[in-house]
């Protein structure tokens, strides 16, 4: 208790609130800093868990020599390239899990130590899977039609999507 109030920052002599324990060559070294000096040293930043960085480094390790082949992988649904996924650590759409399945599985194994879902199964998802794939493709076609200024075709697709999406309304 008493010691707690006496610790001062080794940089500036202000009360220290950040205490860093480092093990160097098997020897324990304790450093004390006030919040300002700790910030200058970027200690707190280093200690934060940067998930994106971890995902990226794990992805990197698994890509290795096959990079050329993988760099050509692109998801037809959302257009994301494997390398973009690798850089961002985030998938672009649900379909990426199919397209990038091969490089993803070892990554998932590393993150979760398992790569097979054993939890809850939503009762309706599977029965709707086919329709949803169709809707996703139709939406992609509609976007392409709009880009190509084929507005009549886009309108036709829009109505078709509405009709099909409506059929998905709850029983």
């Amino acid at each position, binding site marked *: *208790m*008493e010691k*707690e109030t006496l610790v001062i920052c080794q940089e500036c002599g202000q009360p220290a609130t950040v205490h860093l*324990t480092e093990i160097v060559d098997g020897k324990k070294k304790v450093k004390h800093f006030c919040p300002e000096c700790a910030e200058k040293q970027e200690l*707190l930043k280093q200690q*934060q*868990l940067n*998930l994106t960085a971890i*995902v990226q480094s794990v992805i990197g390790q698994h890509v290795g020599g096959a990079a050329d082949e993988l760099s050509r992988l692109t998801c037809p*649904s*959302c257009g*994301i390239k494997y390398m973009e996924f690798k850089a*961002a*650590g*985030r*998938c*672009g*759409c*649900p379909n990426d*899990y*199919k397209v990038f399945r091969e490089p*993803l599985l070892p*990554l*998932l194994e590393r*993150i*979760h*130590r*398992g*790569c*097979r*879902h*054993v*939890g*809850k*199964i*939503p*009762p*309706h*998802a*599977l029965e*709707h*899977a086919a*329709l*949803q*794939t169709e*809707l*996703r493709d139709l*939406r992609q076609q509609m976007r392409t039609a709009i880009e190509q200024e084929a507005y009549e075709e886009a309108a036709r697709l829009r109505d078709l999507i509405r009709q099909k999406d409506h059929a*998905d309304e*709850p029983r």
Partner: protein
Amino acid sequence: MNLDSLTQTSGEWLRSTGAEADIVISSRIRLARNLSSFPFTNRANAHQKAEIEQNLKTRLEKLDFEPRLVYLNLAPLSLLDRQLLVERQLISRELANSEGPRGVAVASNEIISVMVNEEDHMRLQVIRSGFSLDEAWQDADRLDDKLEEKVPYAFSEELGYLTACPTNVGTGLRASVMLHLPALVLAKQIEKVFRALQKINLAVRGLYGEGSRASGDFYQISNQVTLGKSETTILGEIRDVIPNIITYERQARQTLTRESRPAVLDKVRRAYGTLNNAEMMTSEETMDLLSSVRLGVNLGLIDDINILEVNELFIHTQPAHLQKLLGKELDSEERNSERARFLRNRLREINNHLN
């Protein structure tokens, strides 16, 4: 929903009821869910995001579910209002600070909220006071089932619920328990607890999630693994470890009162004295002092204030709450001065009420 009325209370998760509420502040379940026929939020353009929002807003508002959910469109809200929702743990900082069509559906008791267009299309959240993971899970599971009747989820038999980030895929479940561990911090035992938790793949975070500092000695313990384990297993792993941490904290508290009672009493009294008298007060310092007072109340060292009142001060002295309560926007220096004044007034009221 009238946002200003939120500041009248402390929110369900700070009610300080439920099992082990002196140490366990709250239990939280979060489920990540996505629509199967849209790109994830980060890849969706403004038009698609608007479509996703419209789709989910309608379904959330019309959902046959009790308690009813009220949808708040976040895009037109001021920074202050969004910050208020963050402080109440109804939305994440990421959702508050992002752009484009997005929102949150909230139950009036604030136990349940559903974020729309966060990293995933939907983040379902249930937050309950005290050690009540199972109750929180039951609510989340029930809401998830109701939503799934109406919303086609992205799901694969092999990989489970598909999420934008591979760290959430599978169950999409993040279960967390928020603990107040001032004695373990004082006894410098907290690092040891963290290391033990990391060994069993549990994460430790500060009050406001990823990357936030553990202000006020609040720590969130949550699962990291979401794939390859069932929800029951994940919940069980956290449920089993929490009583051990509670026991360590209780032991540390006993040791403190047995071996350094004058020093602890001094710390608690000084904290209370500072809160009663300071002219300027940052929210960090407030959290740290209130943490000492909270420990003092729980150890029976101080009876000037009760736990519910301490909990309320924790939330009411946060920047957005303070500005809402005072009805004006303040810069950080003004806030420090107004926060100190607010604390002095509030503690005087509590004291007068006691006498």
